[in-house]
């Protein structure tokens, strides 16, 4: 059986797997789709009933950090941002969706970039989570105050909730990243 080698300058048939970088690879599509769905599902399903925060407290944050710390900033930004925004849309608070896309996307991006520096040492994890969380809290605050017009009071009232969410989400997310890497050693290379 002979395989025809395309001659110089000749248009190659557009088939994936022949080094054609036109599309993102099927592995990436599957991984991103699953991480996005997981972020949305966890955000919607794990609302921890806790009276002082009116029940908005959820562990979706943990998935944003998990994606960013395990698979890098691209996964963190896309899956974290889009997944959380989808959760907002489906959960019925669509007006937050654009803000969430920006806030969680930035959070995933920043924690992915910083958290994987130095080969993902614990210190880098912590620094990534702190910087990413700070971005998220700031963007939510600015957007609620200036853009959505909540006013200064309600926007400030949201800050402690968001900080608690980042703290717990960051801890759970880094624990998750650590345990899942133990369970599946081939991950995140």
């Amino acid at each position, binding site marked *: 059986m002979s395989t025809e080698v395309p001659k110089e300058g000749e248009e190659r048939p*557009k*088939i*994936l*797997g022949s080094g*054609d970088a*036109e*599309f*993102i690879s*099927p*592995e990436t*599509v*599957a991984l*991103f*789709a*699953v*991480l*996005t*769905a*997981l972020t*949305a*599902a*966890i955000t*919607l*399903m*794990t*609302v*921890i009933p*806790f009276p002082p925060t*009116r029940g908005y*407290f959820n*562990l979706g944050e943990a998935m944003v950090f*998990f994606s960013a710390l395990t698979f890098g900033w691209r996964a963190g930004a896309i899956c974290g941002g*889009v*997944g959380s925004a*989808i959760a907002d*849309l*489906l959960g*019925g*608070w*669509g*007006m937050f969706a654009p803000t969430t896309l920006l806030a969680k996307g930035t959070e995933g991006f920043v924690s992915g970039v910083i958290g994987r520096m130095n080969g993902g040492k614990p210190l880098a994890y912590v620094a990534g989570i702190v910087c990413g969380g700070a971005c998220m809290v700031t963007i939510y605050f600015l957007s609620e105050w200036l*853009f*959505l*017009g*909540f*006013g*200064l*009071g309600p926007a*400030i*009232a949201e800050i402690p909730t968001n900080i*608690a969410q980042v703290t*717990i989400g960051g*801890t*759970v997310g880094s*624990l*998750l990243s650590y*345990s*899942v890497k133990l369970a*599946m050693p081939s*991950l995140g290379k």
Partner: protein
Amino acid sequence: MTGFMDLYSERDTFLHRLDPRVKLLAVVTISALAFILSEIWSLLLLLAFILLLMALTGSSFRKAFFALKFVIRFMVLITVLWPLFDRSGTPVLFSIGPLDITEPAVWRGATSAVRVGCFATVWYILMFTTSQRDLVRGLTKLGLRFDYGLALAISFRFIPTFGLTIESIKDAQRARALELDRGSLWRRSKNYVTVLVPTVVTALRTAHMLSLTLQSRAYGAVRERTYLREVRMGPRDYVAAAVALLVFLLPAVAMYHFGVQL
């Protein structure tokens, strides 16, 4: 289960038949209008208009109630908290300790509450009338690359699946004496790790299978895509798009060109 409700319901109203792009445009223009309006009466009028559209979506009372419960909670929160932080203006209505509640602040609080109400309710028109499939299709028509669109469509499809996975793993761990409903917030969250690790591992295995499936179904084999369902703008869609634009442009021109207070 604290799960979520599928906001979309299958109906045959004119809003359901509209092109998803037009509905997205309407969400943007109505939000922009709510952003520039500053008088409470015009904002109330806009809110009434949005609620009328919401009634026209023909959704069940249960869904509308679910939606409005959330919106009203937010509006009350803003109305109450605003005057506490905004102490400018006179006359002072009453004082609680060092806090002065002034009349203009109360009005400003009510105005922003109505504005937030507009921001919040306008999304329900989109979510009540657009299926996830159409939403993704609209986004790809707006220029989202199809591979990202595919990832988005797949993730929409997997959200309920993973929801069920989380539920069953939660039950399985509860059967092994895991406590998720007791203790401090910190303790509860830490206990959730034992639920999330199996969930994530299951999901990543799914991702592996999914990538094999995509390859076996010739994902990306041809550059020019064809679609089973084609979304096209009909005359009705152009009229609706024009109306959506005018809803924003007319008050904007009146405000900024003719100086009308709205």
